[in-house]
């Protein structure tokens, strides 16, 4: 895991070498002269070898010094203050929504396989899967914000000022991220359950006098959930990525907006820090998925 993170952070660091523009370009803007740029580059230590700088950053990072932001004149910690909470709350809420929507829905749909309800939902599912979150976001802002006035688009309160208000502002962004993912999970769960339902062991279970529900609960779900759990865990990574876009649409001050702005400003220290955080979430969720899978299915052993 540590190796993966290390590699990702190195790649992110190197990526900046290949795109045009550096922090100096941005800081000087229209006041640029080659002399001033060279002086500033030297002052900021940007004239050193890229690997030397990476090593510097890395040693700083592991000792808890994330460096100083180029574009805000503050430490990275100060810049990130409060931003992580927004993205974390948003992602978590979206993720819980995915689970809350898709699991009951998937089970219900599999129950009525081939029925009218099922057909309608399967068709709708396709539509929802295809909608990008940013579009849903714009749609929500318009329908729920401007027409129904359920929330104030562009409004935001910090959690320390009004915690419930803060969560309230996240509901629609979270839904915008969650719906396409929920559609996918529902589809996966439905077909997974249906696949299991045709198995021999299900017939045996029925023949022992089990009701449909107890067959589902005791036998089928255990197997059917296996691929779903892995997928759900992985969606959290997607959701974090999705929140980057949705934060723009809803003007939420989270990590995503900070990341995009910092890439634009070539503010490496901030970008590095966010990239490592996101990478950590992805890697960690992967690991967690493995653990959960193993708990559900003891045949799988973690290497």
């Amino acid at each position: 895991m540590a190796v993966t993170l290390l590699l990702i952070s190195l790649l992110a660091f190197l990526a900046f070498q290949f795109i045009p523009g550096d922090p100096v370009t941005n800081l000087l803007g229209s006041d640029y002269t080659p002399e001033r740029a060279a002086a500033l580059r030297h002052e900021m230590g940007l004239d050193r070898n890229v690997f030397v700088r990476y090593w510097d950053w890395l040693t700083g990072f592991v000792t808890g010094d994330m460096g100083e932001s180029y574009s805000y004149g503050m430490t990275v910690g100060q810049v990130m203050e409060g931003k992580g909470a927004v993205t974390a709350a948003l992602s978590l809420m979206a993720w819980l929504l995915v689970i809350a929507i898709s699991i009951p829905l998937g089970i219900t749909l599999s129950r009525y396989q081939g029925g009218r309800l099922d057909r309608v939902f399967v068709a709708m599912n396709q539509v929802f899967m295809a909608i990008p979150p940013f579009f849903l976001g714009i749609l929500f802002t318009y329908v729920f914000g401007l027409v129904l006035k359920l929330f104030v688009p562009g409004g935001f309160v910090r959690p320390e000022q009004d915690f419930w208000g803060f969560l309230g502002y996240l509901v629609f962004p979270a839904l915008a991220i969650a719906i396409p993912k929920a559609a996918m999970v529902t589809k996966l769960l439905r077909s997974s359950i249906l696949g299991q339902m045709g198995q021999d062991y299900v017939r045996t279970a029925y023949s022992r006098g089990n009701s449909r529900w107890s067959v589902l609960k005791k036998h089928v779900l255990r197997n059917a959930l296996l691929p779903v759990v892995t997928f759900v865990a992985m969606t959290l990574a997607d959701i974090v990525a999705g929140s980057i876009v949705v934060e723009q649409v809803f003007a939420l001050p989270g990590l995503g907006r900070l990341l995009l702005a910092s890439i634009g400003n070539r503010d490496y220290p901030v970008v590095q820090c966010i990239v490592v955080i996101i990478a950590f979430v992805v890697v960690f969720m992967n690991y967690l998925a493995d653990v959960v899978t193993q708990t559900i299915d003891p045949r799988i052993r973690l290497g």
Partner: protein
Amino acid sequence: MTKRILALAMAVLMTAALFVGGGQSAFAASGSAADAAGEITVGIASDLDSSLDPHVSSSLAGTREVLFNIYEGLMKPDTQGNLIPAVAESYTVNDTADEYTFTLREGVRFHNGNEVTVGDIVYSLTRAAGLETGEPLMATLAGVKAVEATDDKTVVVTLSAPDAEFIAYTTAAVIPEGSDPADGIIGTGPFKYVSRSPQENVVIERFDDYWGEPARCAKVTFRIIDDGQAMVMALHSGAIDLAAHLDASQAAELSGLNVLEGSMNLVQALYLNNARAPFDDIRVRQALCYAIDKVMVIDLACDGHGTPLGSSMYPAFGRFFDEDLTGYYEPDMAKAMELLAEAGYSSDKPLKFTIAVVEAYTPHMNTAQAVVELLRQTGMVEAEIQPMENATWYSEAYQGRNFDATITGMDASTLTASALLGRFVSDNAKNFIGFASDDYDAAYAAAVSTTDADEQTAKFRECETILTENAANVYIQDLADFVVTQTDIQGYQFYPLYVMDMSTVCRVG
């Protein structure tokens, strides 16, 4: 089938809405209640620069625009384009325009409560002009030779060469002696700095001991909303009270609110790289001027809002603006084709070039599309838009000078013609189009050194004429600037500079 799906989809969405609806209305109400006490929320499209150091001239006009409320110089600009005394009470200038004497206004206080002394002024100007380091922080003050306090309310500034425009540069901020804005933002303006949160907001508060007319609102929060659509939504919903620099289409979406139209005070043009082919050939540059009908571009790209320009000067500069230059190149396709043919281009061998545009600047992108379309009609020009990120544009096009043509807007940081015209002097570091003309250099030098106002005006106008005659760039327009406010917000004033004065804005009723 489709209908039923749609109906179901709506039903699901509505139900979801009902679940969360209860909690929502409560906090929506509390948000607007807090605003009522003279607090105004302004939407700005990009976050401020790294340092809020007023002397480190900022690459972002958006930063200067906000800092205008916090810092003041000896003089400050007013809405009419005049310079009015601020921290100074009055000034005199000697006959050779190389010595300026300022009298300090009494009772001006810094935001930390201390009274401004001549020491603060000397420190500020010395710092900004880089007299101790030898490296001026503000290029406009590079001509300062010495700053000296002759008594406890008089400061004398000596210049190394006469400069009749110098007074406009004394808008440079006055900060407390010995202070560094990195450690605390202290000015003398009508608002004091409270806090900032990156990509979120910047908060300023009314300064009660302000020497002049106090601000009419108690607190202003600048919220950073970088997405144009989100900005429109935020105005619709009332999440923000005011937003400036909207374009015509955004303003049209917000017709129910207060829509004010001013101008951006910048020179939008198709800037041409005069230093290299194909635009090192004056015939090619002129052909483009004839082919691009400014009025049509403004109609196509900006719904007809905008002021056509013919040189690097915009109307807010009053006497320096030469209106006749706007029509110097009457749109004339035949002439354009003739010039292109002379330069060796034909429909078989068309002129090909790229136009670098920062993608995020919608008005420039729209203009670029209109320009490409008009040029296509000559049948001899194939222009291609090269959208890029701001940082890339700076490093490649502006600083690297590695571009054919670019559409952007050049604004003036001070109320001087030099702010717009200085960059086209051959050896100016900011001369990114590589324009070189001895006549221009001579006229410019004459304009900045004379103390005679009429002669100065004539010389600057000569500079503008040279730019136009040489078709240095294809000048297009001064973009329209739409400011949209909620209906209960009053007092917004346009300046001939890119600033946003919040001190006159207030909520009524």
